[in-house]
Every structure is written in C-alpha cells, then in structure tokens.
C-alpha cells in the first residue's frame, strides 16, 4: 500500500526529525503535547515506532506517552492522507444533509466500511461533531480550508480538482 511505502521511506533515515523536535522542546515531560503535535505535523499521524522511540529518549515511558496520544482525539495513531476531509455532522449540518455528502465522498474515494483513508493514501475522511459554522451548513473542512453549503455534486468536483492538481 502507498501509505506503508511512505511510512518506510519516512524512517529510512532514522529518527532525525524526531530528534530535532525533541531538541527544540528540550526533552521535557511538560512539553509532551507540543512534541506530539509537532511530530503529527511532520508525519500526519503518530507512528507506533515514534511513540516507543520517544519513550526511550524522554523521562516518560512508551506506555505513558501512548496513554496521552490515545486520550486526545486531536492525535491519530493511524496514517492519514495528504488531504484530511473533516465533515461536520452537528445538528445543523445533519438536518441540512451532511450524510448524503459523506456518502458521496465515500463513494468517490471507494472507501469500504470502517475505512477512512483512501487506497492511494491521499484522502482521509473524518466526521466531527460541530465546526462552529452552522450558518454555512452543511460544511466541510479540507486541511485548513472551509467549504460551505456542500452538496454531493459539489464535493465530487472539489475532490476531482484536488486530484487533477496532484497529477500535475
């Protein structure tokens, strides 16, 4: 799988990136959340190997770090795609049709039941409870960009646009 390949190349050169993040945050226990955020920023998720590696370098055990990483929903232990599509399923978005939009995305990306990242490793789909933009319902956010008043057709076009950019 593409994602796994990316993962292997990421660690081919060892944990240099992790080391520099640790240096920056002085290996401090109190900085754990910031360190995990920086690592997730680098890899898009928290690889198990990195969590264990952190445990051998910081004054915290791997199991403790894993506990923190699994406690907060901001951290992901599964590889994520280059584009993370967050689809709001709060009350307002739900009544204005977020589910058909979600189904359209799943269909477009060929996601099976329980699969959240597309086979090409480009897209990850997540539902969130409320993005606080109810006036724009139904709303999705791709990486940092907000797309208001989504429809099944519109979301397919957006994905096509992103795909064609990737092919360039």
């Amino acid at each position, binding site marked *: 799988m593409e994602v796994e390949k990316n993962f292997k190349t990421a660690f081919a050169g060892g944990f240099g990136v992790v080391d520099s993040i640790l240096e920056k945050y002085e290996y401090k226990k109190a900085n754990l959340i910031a360190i995990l955020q920086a690592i997730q920023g680098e890899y898009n998720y928290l690889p*198990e190997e990195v*969590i*264990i590696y952190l*445990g*051998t370098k910081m004054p915290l*055990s*791997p*199991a403790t770090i894993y506990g923190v990483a699994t406690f907060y929903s901001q951290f992901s232990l599964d590889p994520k795609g280059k584009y993370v599509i967050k689809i709001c399923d709060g009350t307002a978005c739900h009544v204005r049709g977020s589910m058909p939009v979600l189904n359209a995305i799943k269909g477009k990306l060929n996601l099976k039941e329980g699969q959240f990242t597309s086979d090409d490793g480009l897209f990850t789909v997540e539902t969130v409870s409320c993005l606080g933009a109810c006036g724009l319902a139904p709303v999705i956010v791709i990486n940092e960009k907000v797309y208001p008043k989504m429809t099944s057709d519109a979301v397919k076009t957006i994905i096509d646009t992103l795909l064609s950019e990737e092919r360039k």
Partner: protein
Amino acid sequence: MAKTLFINGKEVEFDNEPNLLEVIRKNGFNVPTFCYRPDLTQFGACRMCVVEVVYPNGRTIVNSSCTMPPEEGINVKTNTDRVRKIRKTVLELLLANHDRECTTCDKSGNCELQKYSEEYGVRNIRYAKKDPEKYLPIDHSNPSIVRDPNKCILCGACVRACQEYQGHAVLGFANRGSKTTVGPVAGRELASVDCVYCGQCKAVCPTGALTLVNEVDKVWDEINNPAKKVVVQVAPAVRVALGEMFDMPAGENVIGKIYSAMRKIGFDLVFDTNFAADLTIMEEATEFIERVTKGENLPLFTSCCQAWVRYVETQHPEMINHLSSCKSPQSMLSSLAKYILPKTKEGYTKENTVVVSIMPCTAKKAEIKRKQLTDNGQFDTDYVLTTQEFAQMIKSAGIDLKTIEAEEADSPFGEYTGAATIFGASGGVAEAAARTAYYLITGEEIASDDIVELRGVDKHAYNKDVVLDIKGTKVKVKVVSTLAEAEKAIQAIKAGTADFQLLEVMACPGGCVNGGGQPTSCNTPELRIKRAEGLYNEDKCDTEFRKSHKNKDIIKLYDEYLEKPNSHLAHELLHTTYADEFKGSYKDL
C-alpha cells in the same frame, strides 16, 4: 494540642496522616478500597472508600476518604445507608463489565472484588452483562505474569506500582471514557516491552486481571513421574511468609515445616537455597575484593535479583560489566545439584534430575529460561513455584502446615548460616558480603556481625548508604530497593558523582520479603517489616554460624570440588554472563 475529628460519633485524634482513610483505619474502623495502596500515590479511582462527611456548620458531603485530607471537627460517617448504596452500585457496575468466571480464576479466594461483593451481598446485577464474544484476548506471552484485560477494573494500581517502584511504567492507561484499557504500549504483548518480571503489578492488583503464571500442575506431573528424581530448594524469604497463608503470624519462621511438607508432597531431596546464598557470598565477596584490588568495573552490582539484571541489560546495556558474574543463589544450587548429585547419589543422572525452586519472586520464572543458564541445552532449574503456588500445593495435598512436625533439610545443600537467611531483605546481601569480605581481607572476624545501618524494609528505607571500615580501609556500600532508586544510583555513576564501591539492588520494595510471588501484602506494609524481623531473628539465634565462610558444607564443597572461590570449576558452575541484546525490548525496534 492534637487536632481531633469524629468518626461515627467517636472523637479521635489525628496528626499528619496523608488522608482521611488512614485516620479511619488507624482507629479501628474500615471502609473498602480497590485502588488505594498505602505505599503508592492516592488515585481516587474506585470510589469504594466514599464516606459521608458532616462539617461543623451542618453541611454534608459524600467524598472519597482516600483523597480527602483530615480536617478538624468534621464528623465522618463510614457506614450510612447512602454510602452503602453507592458502594453497592459501584460493585454492580464493575461486575457488569467483569468476566465473572470466578471458580477458574487464579485470584479466586484472594480477590478483593469477590470479597467485597460477598460482604455487600451483591446477588443481583441490574446492568446487562458484557457479551463474552467481546472479551479481549488474554496475554500469556510473559514468562511470569498473565494479563486478563476482561478482569481489569481500571483502578490503576499496577500502573502506579510499575511507575513508582520500577520507574518506567510498562503498563499504562490507553484510550478514554468507556473505551479505557490498561496495558502495554500500543496493544503490545507483555513479553514485547521492557517488563522486568518483578510481579509488583500483580501484587497490587485487586482482581484476577494480573496473575502469576501458575505451574503447580507441571510440578505435580514431574513428582508423579517415577522416572524422574525431583529435588527442591526454598529461598530465604519464603520461610517467613508462607505461614501467613496457613493462619500463622507474619514473620514466623516455618522452615522446618516447609522441609517436612516438601517430603510429604513427594520431593525426593529437600535443599535450601540459603546454602547457595552462602556460596554466593564466598564467590561475590572474592570477586569484589579482586575488582577493588584491580580497580576495575566498580561499583560492583549485585546480581541476585533477576528483575534488576534484566533492567541493566535492557536500559543500561553499557553497564553490564558492573554486574557481578555470580549466578543467583537459585541458579547456583541448580547447577551444583545437576553436577554433584549424579556423582554422589544412586539413581540420579543429569537427565532424570528435575530441580524445582520455591521462590518469593515472579522474575525467577523468567530467569531460569535464560540461555546463559543452560548446560548442553538443558536448563539448570526446571521449575519455579512462588510462595503462593507452593501454599496451593500444600493445601491440595491435604497437609496442615500448622500442625506438622519440623524436619531438617538434606545433605549436601541443606546447611546454612545466618548470613544467608538475611538475603531475603533489602540490605541483607550487602551485610552478609561485608561479614565475609572483612574476613577474606584481614584474616580476622568482623567485630560485630550486626550492621544495622544496612537494614530496614519500609518505604523510608529504599535507599541506604553505609561506610564500612575494614581495618582503616573505607568501603562505601549503597543499598537500594525498587528500580526507581536504582536508576538514581546509575545516573550518579554516569554523572561521575557516585562514590560507592558496591551497589546492592533488589527490585521489590523492601527486597524479596515483599516479592511479587509472596502472599498479598499491598494493603499492609507492616507485613514485610515482620517478615524481615523473622529473618534477622533467625540470623542472630545461632551466634556461631552468622558468616558464610563458617558454613561447614561450603568449606567441604570447596575442599572436594571447587578448590577455592572463583576457581575454574567455580566459574563454570557458579558464574554467568550477561547480554546486551534487546529481544522483546523497546530497543528492539
């Protein structure tokens, strides 16, 4: 004037107790607890210790007594209808999520969840039972500990024990809310992390979520096999704890009854690991003197504790040369038995001799599987049973330990001195070594056999520094228990600030008397103090034989076989090597 508060109407004094629960228990009242362990930090997870507190102004609250500091003038009610109902509901909720197959659980009869459910008369659980289809797999990978997540009540005692005693929590909480679990990192097996097998997680677990690997049936099979000669040895700390499981007081030395029970069970020869402890002192003291003379690989680390050995190998592999090359007493005796018995006893061959050892320790189960402790592919020690398993064996054989007559151990590995007995308490190995090292260096006997500064097993005595004066030569000895304290000593060595020449480490708090395989004592720290007293009492009762070099059978062993300490044959049989390979460790990425 002392401050006072009221418990169920009775006025009681309090001073600097860390929490209300301690005041309650100190004054003859009790409340149930799962997560509270006096030697660990308070956690307030289980909510079983809730009490009603009435303030002087009439305000009433319900609070967990383990997390509440005692306050002047409050009226604490430990047994109201309200708190009883809360506790019963807590039990019902815990049981709804619990694998309730009690009869086949290793903790049955010794389980706090079972005990309180019975006391509170929980007969009907209003909540739906967890679907057995959804049970998580049981982890049998670890040689010492079995982890059954379906019996975990999330009290966190194991997580705290691992973190606070051993300093590197291989167990931790994962996930959040109703999905919370306790386990090793990223769902790994307990064999694929840096577990040192000390068993303290199991010792503080209130339920059957963490139990020891029970090998009683395998030992019965060996005993019942007429082709096998099954010999047994028993460690120092077992003799002062086993009695507790037969309604005898903690610290009562039942060694004679143990020998007798062993024969009744059907063991062919009964030996005492204490003999090998004396031998360890002869070898290790000689090794220490040699290292001091040459000035190399100092400080010397003791190597009796397998949890400590594993810790050095996995966490500080660059320091394995500091470890004494001596095998643990258990392994020394096993090697000797398989070497000497076939030469001296009729019917014994290397192949048909089975060595079983009775240990206070769960890590010993892992130790015997080390490849460095084999001879031509055959393990030196075949089985390790903990004190708890041995008690089970005695009970199932219908033996009443309390009433049977004491007997003597068998020759040639049955004689021992007081120096060997005190191996079971933190500081004992160093004290025993000092007595013999003094003699080996000066040719004279040490003025006083009692080096009391090295003693103490309570939580204020995890770290002891003693300077010994050997006729003008000062030797600094550091004694630690718990690996968290050992880590501090290692950091001092790495920083160049360590000034000690000998480091004795026992991984369990207070040493082997409080080992992971001993009868449960996590709620009563006094038990290990009594057990240690039992050992020191035996040490001082025979004034002539308090030093390992006075053991007549040890002298005979050197005369007949080994020649002298650290001789070629001694090295072959009694010494071992260490590996800085990280199989199953975090470094094995």
